[in-house]
């Protein structure tokens, strides 16, 4: 960047600004570090020391314990299944719906677009949606975590705009070469949309991994809980007595166990974080372009 004239007051400001932002960055991130450290610490150390970033005695007890329980392993399995299956279903539905909606000559296009946009400002609400899911027989089915939320209308509109901004000449040329409609979508449009597909794969995957609301609504069978719901039960019950909750573990959850579950539920996000940061920022900026 260009060189700026800096006054002494400006230099003092710079020093404080750099330090202040460093503190903000550390402050934002340090709770995660503490939880990771705590998950490797002994109960005795957690009780004795108020705060630490490196445990004195590193132990894997908490992880050994949670990975020895069926409840935990199963919840991780549920979360992985819902994330993978959900992302595939969501992408397939969003891409196949966005493409026709991006074709300007399509009869009924404007009506459909308006119907989609209307769902962003008005919806039937929690109870009627619950009733539909119930009458479809999806209660306590993992598909209830996927199908009712399969298409995010915001993402759909952004993908549609992306398709729409592709040059028409591509399609014309493909038609002249004798390419069928299916061929145009499959062999030309989709391969050219890799960046946008990557972005929305991550958007949907993060949504499914993090989703707790739909599991709370539709899954009462504790053997089908995703890890987010299990974590909520584990942490919140121990602190506040809600009354009629099932106890999941034979003994009351100890601090390091909770921390270990938090860490496992966080790890996929941290592992993919470099991609997330890049693609999400792009998605936000894509979203701010009106389509």
């Amino acid at each position, binding site marked *: 960047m*260009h060189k*700026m004239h800096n*006054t002494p*007051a*400006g230099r003092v*400001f710079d020093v404080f600004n*750099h330090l202040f*932002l460093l503190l903000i*960055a*550390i402050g*934002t*991130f340090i709770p995660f570090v*503490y939880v990771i450290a705590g998950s490797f610490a002994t109960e005795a150390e957690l009780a004795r020391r*108020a705060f630490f970033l490196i445990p004195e005695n590193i132990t894997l007890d908490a992880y050994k314990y949670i990975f020895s329980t069926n409840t935990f392993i199963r919840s991780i399995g549920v979360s992985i299944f819902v994330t993978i299956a959900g992302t595939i279903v969501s992408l*397939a539905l969003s891409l*196949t*719906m966005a*493409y*026709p909606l991006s074709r300007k000559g*399509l*009869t009924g296009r404007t009506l459909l677009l308006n119907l989609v946009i209307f*769902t962003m*400002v*008005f*919806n*039937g*609400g*929690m*109870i*009627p*949606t619950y*009733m*539909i899911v119930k009458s479809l027989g999806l209660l306590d089915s993992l598909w209830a975590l996927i*199908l009712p939320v*399969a*298409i995010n209308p915001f993402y759909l509109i952004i993908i549609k705009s992306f398709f729409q901004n592709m040059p028409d000449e591509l399609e*014309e040329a493909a038609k002249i070469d004798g390419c*069928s*409609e299916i061929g145009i*979508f499959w062999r030309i449009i989709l391969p050219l949309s890799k960046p946008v597909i990557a972005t929305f794969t991550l958007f949907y995957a993060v949504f499914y991994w*993090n989703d*707790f*609301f739909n599991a*709370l609504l539709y899954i009462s069978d504790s053997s089908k809980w995703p890890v*987010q719901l299990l*974590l*909520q039960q584990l*942490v*919140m019950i121990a*602190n*506040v007595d*809600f009354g009629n909750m099932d106890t999941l573990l034979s003994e009351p959850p100890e*601090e390091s166990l*909770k921390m270990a579950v*938090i860490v496992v*539920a*966080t790890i996929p996000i*941290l592992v993919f974080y470099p991609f997330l940061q890049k693609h999400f920022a792009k998605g*936000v900026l894509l979203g*701010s372009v009106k389509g």
Partner: protein
Amino acid sequence: MANLKTEQSVKVHTLPINKMTLWERLKKDRFLYVLLLPGIIYFALFKYLPMWGTLMAFKDYSPFLGFWASDWVGLEHFKNFFSNPDFFRLLRNTLILALYDIVFFFPAPIILSLLINEIRITIYKRSIQTFVYVPHFMSWVIIASISYVFLTTSGGVINEVVSFFTGKEISFLSSPEWFRPVIIGQVIWKETGWGTVIFLAALASVSPEQYEAAIVDGAGRFRRMWHVTLPALKSTIIILLILRLGNFLDQGFQQIYLMTNSLNREVADVFDTYVYFMGITQGAFSYSAAVGLFKAVVGIILIYGTNYFAKKIGEEGLF
């Protein structure tokens, strides 16, 4: 030459379509309609059918009779709701949370992006951004769980510090007076960093000449921030503020549900959590559907109202 070609191809392409009958047009694009079908089924089933299902708000739905056989009761559930003290409690809680949000959270990303924008060592700037974005990607369950770990009275870090200085512990998680500060604190922690993305993007488009001109005019650092940087953010700030006002009824369900317990429910309940507790937990389906419908109708009026207002004051509307 190239222009001529595209013009011709457009003509060739569009003329016959106008002459086609509806059936021929549908037939020509049959592949596109096949592609649309799963999406249309999704919207019909999970978005439009529930809208029609909100009619149950005017019925006395009984799971034994089913949707059709249940009696119509007109506006009874709405009357019950508006004459119930719960209504004012929910409205008050929602309004206070919205006010806290605008006063304490809303300015945070703006201030943070102004400060980040002042850093000129690129790698330092990137590193700061990388760290402050992290909590945005975490679920509310993770955020709430970590809050519990830190705030609990049984050995939480914050309470260890508090009791070291005051000799007493504060029940952050179960006392009504701490509910709102905790909620706003969580939002600040989770979303401030990420909130800077859109502001920093707006600042990236400010031309260096503007700063240079300000320097020539003898403006120091703070004057430049005030007179060049902040005005560049003005329309983004206005749009986001309008958006926020437009959906202030949507105080995040997940976050509030996770932090609610029997001791702080009085101040914690908002419309969505109330619908959940009344409908799903207690089975008052029609009554809670009426509450949900009330919220949705007010919501849509607010969105269109604020959008109209935005256009009126000369800003670009959302739609």
